[in-house]
């Protein structure tokens, strides 16, 4: 019972927090400045990490697809089809966002948590600022813009790296890889990829902000909030991954 009540409490507070984001900014320029600051560290700051992971995931998918599927009866072009489809539908959005839950989610939670325990949030509140809107709004918006772009980058790099590795190692020639990829490509796959990316971006941004914003206590609690942000974001990413697949496929 206690767990249910606590769960409802968090759902209620989370919903109210989201509701408080929709207010008229006191000064648009200040909100914009915050937005740009977060856009900068979330986007360009994550490119190297996302790029590295995507290149390896694409390459490994090519090798494993060849190992599992290619026989004399199945043409090698199927590798192109499998790599591109699985990258778009699952690997790029899910793996990228699980990694970003660690990088972006933990930083969001610890930043807001530190602001809470050092009374910076109280100071903003006393000044008469819409605290949730000013602190969470620009962060969430930056996440909603950068994460889908990073997912697109990840999908592109994953497919290209899979194709290049296949070509270089002689597993599958480039033209056959492209032929396979083109054969099974459906624009709807891109819709699913982006639906997942936006959903996961919202999960990472909002859950992490919630965990950080409502920290109570000291430095230890900030660390805990950061961990909770990563764990809960990852769990909800996996859950919503299933739901999106179930609903759209």
């Amino acid at each position, binding site marked *: 019972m206690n767990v249910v009540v606590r769960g409802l409490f968090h759902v209620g507070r989370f919903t109210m927090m989201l509701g408080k984001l929709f207010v008229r900014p006191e000064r648009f320029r200040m909100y914009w400045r915050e937005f740009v600051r977060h856009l900068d560290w979330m986007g360009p700051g994550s490119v190297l990490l996302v790029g590295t992971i995507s290149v390896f995931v694409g390459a490994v998918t090519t090798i494993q697809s060849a190992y599992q599927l290619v026989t004399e009866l199945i043409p090698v072009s199927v590798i192109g089809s499998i790599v591109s489809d699985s990258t778009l539908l699952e690997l790029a959005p899910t793996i990228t966002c699980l990694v970003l839950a660690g990088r972006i989610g933990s930083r969001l939670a610890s930043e807001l948590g530190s602001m809470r325990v050092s009374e910076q949030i*109280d100071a903003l509140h006393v000044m008469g600022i819409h605290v949730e809107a000013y602190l969470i709004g620009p962060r969430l918006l930056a996440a909603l813009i950068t994460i889908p772009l990073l997912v697109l980058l990840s999908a592109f790099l994953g497919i290209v790296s899979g194709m290049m590795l296949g070509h270089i190692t002689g597993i599958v020639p480039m033209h056959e890889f492209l032929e396979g990829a083109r054969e099974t490509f459906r624009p709807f796959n891109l819709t699913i990829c982006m639906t997942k990316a936006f959903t996961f971006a919202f999960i990472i941004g909002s859950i992490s902000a919630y965990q950080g914003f409502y920290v109570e206590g000291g430095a230890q609690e900030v660390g805990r909030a950061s961990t909770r942000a990563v764990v809960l974001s990852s769990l909800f990413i996996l859950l919503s991954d299933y739901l999106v697949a179930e609903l759209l496929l």
Partner: protein
Amino acid sequence: MIRVEGLSHWFGDRQVLFDISVSFEPGKIHLIIGSSGHGKTVFMKCMVGLIQPVRGEVYYDEVPLFRSEPSVQKEIRRKIGMLFQGTALFDSLTVEENVRFPLDMFTRMSEREKKERVAYVLEKVRLPGTQHLYPSELSGGMRKRVALARAIVHNPRYLFCDEPNSGLDPLTASAIDELIWELTREFQTTTIINTHDMNSVLSIGEHIVFLYRGRKWWEGTKENILETDNAELRAFLASSVILRKHIQV
């Protein structure tokens, strides 16, 4: 003028403030004194609206804080400056950006006017030329003074200071007291200070409220505090070395 009427607050089942009523006149320094854990900080947080009391109301120039519309509450808050115990400076911003934050958020001053205003208040708190430094590069006393500069930069009508002297050496502590006194005189603010520093009580305490176990236990001036026959207040005063010779418990 600030008028507190029948303020009571509970944390869960535990009552921490008991029906406190008190008035704070403008242009004066009001000290709230009392031992740790007797409700000073909760009382101040209620007064600035960081905690909504279970019962009672705080009137700012006869406008109720808690019963008013959110827009009116925001207006009241914009007339408040607050110096937090831990300074609550924004770590990622320079001294100048910290101090001008309320101006950036709420005024339409030109860039030059803002720079001049920041330079003026930094001069007032005796920290000229520190605009480019970050809070982490400042000593405890300097951080307090920057926080004080931020609290007064927008000409607040009400100035709240939570333990302004905590963690400071006696010399810096009296410099901060002097500053608050000067600023109160110059800007005619209603200044309310939470403290248990007896130097402050004797030097700047024009109106003193003694809180004991969450109740208003005594109210008076620095002139009559030493003659009080209130046993709990005498015990509190006697715990201070500088007052021990004046007080017989």
